[in-house]
């Protein structure tokens, strides 16, 4: 995990199960502001959030956004209910269907399965950030051109998954498409269009450049 810029040099991610399990015991907690306290776990100071609402600071689409949420609140619900970024959709709400896909540090992630408090300091990109200056990203344009959408509810998540997939696999084989995009489900049945969209976007120079950047 990377450190966030606003808290240099400190463990950034707060309390985690791993650090808890590692710990031999908890020291007395020291209250901090806004429902966050610090406990000593195995010699290291970690933050404990809640109960109750806590302030979170999220790097979303290149800007710092703040919200007050309960620690049990997912990134998805924070985006949708607190920040009115509703492109990511809530469908299965348990990490199966991919409708909530966003990029976290450039990788596709199910935002329904991440807690907001846990992704502070990470770079989060939602579908709202893809189009630049009123121009659709090549992946988005390919979805439009190939009618890779019907009701469109899975589409933003699918677009983000395709973006992350093509960044990593700029010239994918059909077999890679099957596996790489198997984490997004569509009910209307738009996969034929999605396959064509991936092929079109992969052929775009700008998409390929994105791929090289990420290796």
């Amino acid at each position, binding site marked *: 995990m990377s450190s966030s810029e606003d808290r240099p040099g400190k463990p950034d991610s707060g309390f985690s199960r791993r650090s808890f399990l590692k710990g031999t015991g908890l020291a007395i907690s020291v209250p901090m502001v806004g429902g966050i306290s610090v406990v000593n776990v195995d010699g290291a100071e970690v933050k404990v959030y809640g109960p109750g609402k806590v302030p979170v600071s999220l790097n979303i689409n290149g800007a710092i956004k703040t919200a007050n949420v*309960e620690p049990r609140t997912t990134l998805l619900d924070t985006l949708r209910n607190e920040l009115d970024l509703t492109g990511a959709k809530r469908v299965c709400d348990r990490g199966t269907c991919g409708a909530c896909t966003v990029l976290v540090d450039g990788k596709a992630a199910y935002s329904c399965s991440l807690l907001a408090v846990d992704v502070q300091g990470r770079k989060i990109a939602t579908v709202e950030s893809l189009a630049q200056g009123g121009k659709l990203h090549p992946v988005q344009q390919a979805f439009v051109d190939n*009618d890779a959408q*019907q009701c469109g*509810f899975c589409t933003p998540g699918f677009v983000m998954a395709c973006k992350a997939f093509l960044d990593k696999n700029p010239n994918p084989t059909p077999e890679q498409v099957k596996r790489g995009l198997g984490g997004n489900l569509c009910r209307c049945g738009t996969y034929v269009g999605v396959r064509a969209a991936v092929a079109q976007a992969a052929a775009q120079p700008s998409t390929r450049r994105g791929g090289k950047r990420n290796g």
Partner: protein
Amino acid sequence: MADYKWPDAQKRVHIGKRISRIDGPDKVSGKAKYTFDINRPGMLFGKIVRSPYAHAKIVSIDITEAQKMPGVAAVKIIQGPGTEIQWAGDELVAIAAVDEHKAEDAARAVKIVYERLPHLVHDEDISKVPAEKINRAADGVTGDPDKAFSEAKTTIEGTYGNAIITHCCLESHGQIAEWTDAQNVLLHPSTQSVSSVGGQLAQSLKIPANNVRVKMDHIGGGFGSKFQIDRWGVECANLSKLAQNKPVKMMLERDAELTVAGSRPSIYAKVKVGADANGKIVAWQSEAWGTGGQGGFGTLPMPYVFTGIPNQRRRQMTVATNTGPSRAWRAPNHPQVALITMAALDDLAAELKMDALDFFIKNIEMTGVRANVYRDELLKGAELIEWKKNWHPRGQGTGTVRKGLGLSIHTWGGTPHASDCDVTIQPDGSVEVKLGTQDLGTGTRTVLNIIAAETFGLPLDAVKVMIGDNRYSPSGSSGGSTTVGGISSSSRRASVDALNQLLEKVAPTLQAKPEELEAAGGKIQVAANPAKSVTWKQACASLGSQPITARGKQPGQGTLATGGVGGIQMAQVSVDMETGIVKMDKIVAVQDCGLVIDLKTAESQVYGAMIMGTCYALYEERIMDGATGKVLNPNMEFYKLAGIGDIGQMQVHMMTGPGHDERGVIGLGEPPTISPGAAIANAVANAIGVRVPTIPMTPDKVLAALAGKGGANARV
């Protein structure tokens, strides 16, 4: 009187072309706002406490603790003590709180005492269903089936069936309701019925119908399950009232969506069918049953398509189970009955040692008026899937992975629904199409745009389409493939009328009679002398300050849309004989649907239907637990849908052009979703040599069928 017809083929600029859906850019960029996405100021979140038991009497409900919890704004008992609950997941208490967590906490604090009662949740094996749970519908007899069977050269018997599936809309059912004052409600529903759902709510709230304002820009799937306001819609409005008129958003959780918000009835049948020495079908007998929860499922169109089989005996029964109620599911009853009919006929063809394609064509006259359409489509499909090259007699494959081919035939109505549409031409030349319809993802917006732009000779972006509001002129519910015919007719009539009014105004300028003018290429011109013209803007400027608004209606003068289509599908599969896994190699659809307005979105409908069909043929099933009476897989990891890697190659051939265009517009949503299950099931039988009697054809069923050799029905 205006002449309402579609422009001649050679004059069409937009109609019938491949045009990208106009709301596509909004959808790919997250800008499209679905009901689930709407956040209102001061909005509360609603949750529902549901019965954990499939059959129980409510003894007591204590909401006092829930009411006292922090952040809770309203708690309302929906079904109180004494109520007999008939399915797990039924609605008992509604709660509104400042956020979802608080509402969930409060839901957990509601104390309900139940008296449990015995339940029935399975209907696959009719012999295990208590007699009092079986409702026998009217039987039907045609000809003399007993005599025909006694004289038949070849007869087969089998049991076939379909497990219950759900709609599994990705945007779950739900709404945001708020009282804007003591008498008026603003409703954001997720609905297939923008024009009528407000009236339904008003009736329940006992306020005038026009006191409910309905707005919906986008809907994340419906498939037949979103026509009604639903109890949760009414209770959402009640919670708003209790919470000082604050907006309340209540969208079903995924488990509730899969448990109570819609399912497709199971249909099973014992079938006997006989043929004469020439391979002609002479007799049909079916005893069908199924469950739609506590309710039924209407008269089954059995035998499917081959209605002209001369001798028939049909029996139909409904099993009342303690399961979530069924709702219309894309082409209600047709996919299930297609599976049963086409599988039985395919088994008969195999018994006759006939190529299934030859057998179906030999008997095609028994399909009635569309026999020639089906024949043409079967031959086209056979060409696309290379039937004659790839077909082999049933079970003659070798090796671990075996290939097979199967086919199915389907029909649907798709006649237009009633629709009123307003088209306005402004003096500055801008054009607006307005009506209270909804775009389910079928491309309704795009079709409206195409028709108005075509009629006015304008580019697509010169037209603004406004739908999704019950203050616009009323248009029918989007169900049964009735929308495209309805809205294309009403919008064409409105556009023609508006144009004619404009031509009246412009005629003196061009020194011509209005009927000598036409709109084309952004101009109003004299048809016989296009050099004599004014631009669209100049023409509209002649309106002065008064815009033209014309209302078009369906039904109306002239026939712009009709109904009745046929289609066929053929599937090729590979089956692993050791694991029982079925893989889709290819599926082709040949579909008749009259005049196509937008070929791109029309093809998407067919591709989508074949993918949905692949889901229900191979993967999806609502699995009930007999012991607890609950749905075991109300989630998306165990309620299986096909992913992008599961669908194989797909090909769509639309029957368009002369001979089809003349029929006008016909709905397309339902028909192509009917055949996939049957075509895939027949392909599996062709591959492995035995019938897998029920769908979905999961590996366990394939292996069970192989073990039984004769197609013993493992789950029936």
